[in-house]
């Protein structure tokens, strides 16, 4: 038993070394010494408190958009629409933040976050509904939804809700009573991180311990059988899709309330897709989602530093992430086959 675990660990250490080697090759091709490049990445993500906190900050949208893929995926349905849901959620929070005031900061933040989740939920509703009613392929609809949502938000911040005092297409700032306070001077790190982490753990708990979670798991594993067992599989699929949308919308809300304080053009550098990669890499496991979000956030914040000190553009982080997903997928399959024999 023990030697088996040891063997597994050895194999995975070996796999990680291979991935690092492939990363090194990519960096070397782009004309940089891999070791110094890794150094810049590490320094720019963990080098000091400020860097470390911005890495944690980066985790917020990544973790939540990954979860937004994972929840429907447990029920056997794909949500590729995290990006659009995040944008709409962000807009929803901003809209509340600059237009109303409930009198208490706590209520304000709570209400804005609920609205952001609702906006995301609505954007998951129609693909989910079309899937369960007509079996319209949800991969295509959620993906198209991203483009539609992103142009729609662009329209909103360009026309009806544009802050005309600004040269850029963006909304007004939200009222300060909506801002989730920063925790440290000189860093944008705020309670959003703990809210996001909390949401991940809540869903971890739901999927493992709740009856509802049990029904989601069974539906994802064998819908025909689940139906025979009296589970309303279509409802489960739809609800899991809505939850996914809500979580992605919440990610947008947290970004607005905790960091940007307004909705703006290029609000998201593709968080939805980074989240998708994280979820694929974590095999839908919430705990792994947290760890891998950390690694991806490190790569993203670190590669900004890398670009500053070398000729390697920051886009390398996306490349390294995608390569990692491909290799880990292959390794997992190989190790499962080896493990079987």
């Amino acid at each position, binding site marked *: 038993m023990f030697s088996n675990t040891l063997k597994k660990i050895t194999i995975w250490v070996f796999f990680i070394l291979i991935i690092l080697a492939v990363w090194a090759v990519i960096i070397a091709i782009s004309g940089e010494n891999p070791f110094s490049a890794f150094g810049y990445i590490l320094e720019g993500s963990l080098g000091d408190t400020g860097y470390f906190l911005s890495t944690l900050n980066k985790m917020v949208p990544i973790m939540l958009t990954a979860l937004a893929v994972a929840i429907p995926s447990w029920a056997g349905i794909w949500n590729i629409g995290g990006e659009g849901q995040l944008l709409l959620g962000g807009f929803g929070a901003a809209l509340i933040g600059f237009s109303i005031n409930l009198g208490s900061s706590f209520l304000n933040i709570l209400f804005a976050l609920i609205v952001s989740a609702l906006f995301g939920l609505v954007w998951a509703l129609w693909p989910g509904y079309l899937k369960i009613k007509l079996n319209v392929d949800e991969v295509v609809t959620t993906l198209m939804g991203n483009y539609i949502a992103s142009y729609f938000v662009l329209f909103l911040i360009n026309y009806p809700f544009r802050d005309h005092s600004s040269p850029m297409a963006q909304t007004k700032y939200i009222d300060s009573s909506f801002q989730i306070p920063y925790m440290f001077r000189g860093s944008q790190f705020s309670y959003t991180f703990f809210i996001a982490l909390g949401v991940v753990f809540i869903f971890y708990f739901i999927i493992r311990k709740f*009856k509802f979670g049990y029904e989601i798991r069974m539906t994802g594993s064998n819908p025909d059988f689940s139906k025979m067992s009296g589970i309303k599989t279509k409802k489960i699929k739809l609800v899991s899709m809505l939850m996914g949308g809500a979580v992605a919308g919440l990610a947008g809300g947290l970004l607005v309330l905790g960091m940007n304080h307004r909705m703006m053009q290029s609000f998201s550098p593709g968080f939805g897709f980074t989240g998708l990669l994280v979820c694929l890499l974590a095999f839908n496991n919430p705990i792994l989602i947290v760890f891998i979000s950390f690694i991806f956030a490190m790569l993203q914040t670190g590669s900004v530093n890398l670009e500053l000190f070398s000729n390697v553009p920051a886009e390398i982080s996306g490349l390294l992430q995608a390569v990692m997903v491909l290799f880990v997928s292959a390794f997992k399959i190989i190790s499962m*086959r080896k493990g*079987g024999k």
Partner: protein
Amino acid sequence: MGPDFLGGAEVITIKDLTKRYPNGFEALKGVNLSVKKGEIHSIVGENGAGKTTLMNIIFGLIKPTTGSISVDDKEVNISSTGKAIEMGIGMVHQHFMIVPNLSVMENVVLGSEKDFTNFFGKIDYKSIKLKVGDLIKKLKLSLSPEDIVRDLPIGKQQLVEILKVLYKGPEIIILDEPTAVLVPTEVNDFLDFVINLKNEGKTVIFISHRLKEVFKISDSITVLRNGKTVGSYSKQDITRDEVANLMIGKKFDFNATPPKNEKEEILFSVDDLSLKGMMIKNISFNIKKGEILGVAGVEGNGQEDLFSVLTGDILPEQGSVKLADKELNKSTILEKRKAGIAYITDDRIKNGLAIDRSILENGIAYHHKDQRFGKVLINNKNSVKLVTGIVEDYDVRGVKNMKTPVSSLSGGNMQKLLVGRELNNQVKLLIASQPTSGVDIAAKALIHDSFKELTVEGNSVLLISSDLDELMSISNRIIVLYRGKIVAEFKYPDYDIKELSYYMTGLKES
């Protein structure tokens, strides 16, 4: 004619063959076999004895772990089906390998279409039609080359399967349970067809567990049990009962009788049930308390649709379904289950279990709706208690712990888990479809006993099965479905297998 009399050379010799799967399962633990030229050699054994695995190895679909195979006295390595075909081996599979959306001729030439292809890869369908048509004529089959397979009845699809194999002109033909899907009257014609093949000089390996058929056509018989060869015999040297006992390994009671717990009161009634576009037409029957009602019929005569209607998966257009005077016609499966109906589906992998989830998770399915297992959170203690009980009561073997996935269990143990789960409810009526397909004799007996026990307290069973032996051994009454209608009813002990099969095949109608 026995093998000695034939005195043919050995065409296939197998020595000490074993097959061990990555998960540790040993399908074959040492098999020896020698097949002589021009004979019909039957391989018999229980489900799971290793017959199909052995044949798949000979046909190059599976690689053996150890052991040797010789064809015409030369040791060979059959690494692919292509190699097997080159060596003159053809195999008719238990599960159809034909493609429903292609025509008969496309199916037949699949794999040898190169012979009809020009330089640009274009297929000459005209010559194919001629050639396949000739073969059909020669074999005196009632098929047309251009029929789409999907539209043919099962019996004819089987012929397409065989046609496809014979087309390649094999010298050795493996038939894996070819009669499983045929009705009794079709079986005789088919067996004549097999004898005809032998008369043309072909060697036939015939896999079956139907001893009557085996004794009708074989020259030699090899018995497999638990992945091992028990023995090889000339037909004259052994009797049917001896073979039966060798297969099972212990004396088996062939004289099972239905339980005697019937009461006068009617528990469940179906009245004038019809479904447009589906197989079911004006079906009416009722089940008394404590009764086991069997539904016989050849596959595809409405059993699947009847089951779907009774689960609530499809809503019927007219008619009523009543359990103890409660109308359930339009209710969902959840409501039906709550009223006291339990279901055993015909395909445990498809909709009876979630095989990649744990034993625990599978064991509490539907039970989880009960408050005992918690309102919001799942009550782990009660769940474990329930499933442990099922595992013990129904002798589910191979359970390392509750978290192991169901896929690690053997077919029979999966089925026992499923049956145990379904019977652990407050069951008034059990609707079971093919409850013992693909399980061994011991599991079958256990499952039948649990059905009988259910009737002791006045509960009933609706047993849909294509296994006539099963139906006759435990049903109090049998109704026959033919083309979606009930065409006959038999009452224990007036069961006549001949009569039954006449109704099943439509030779007789009410």
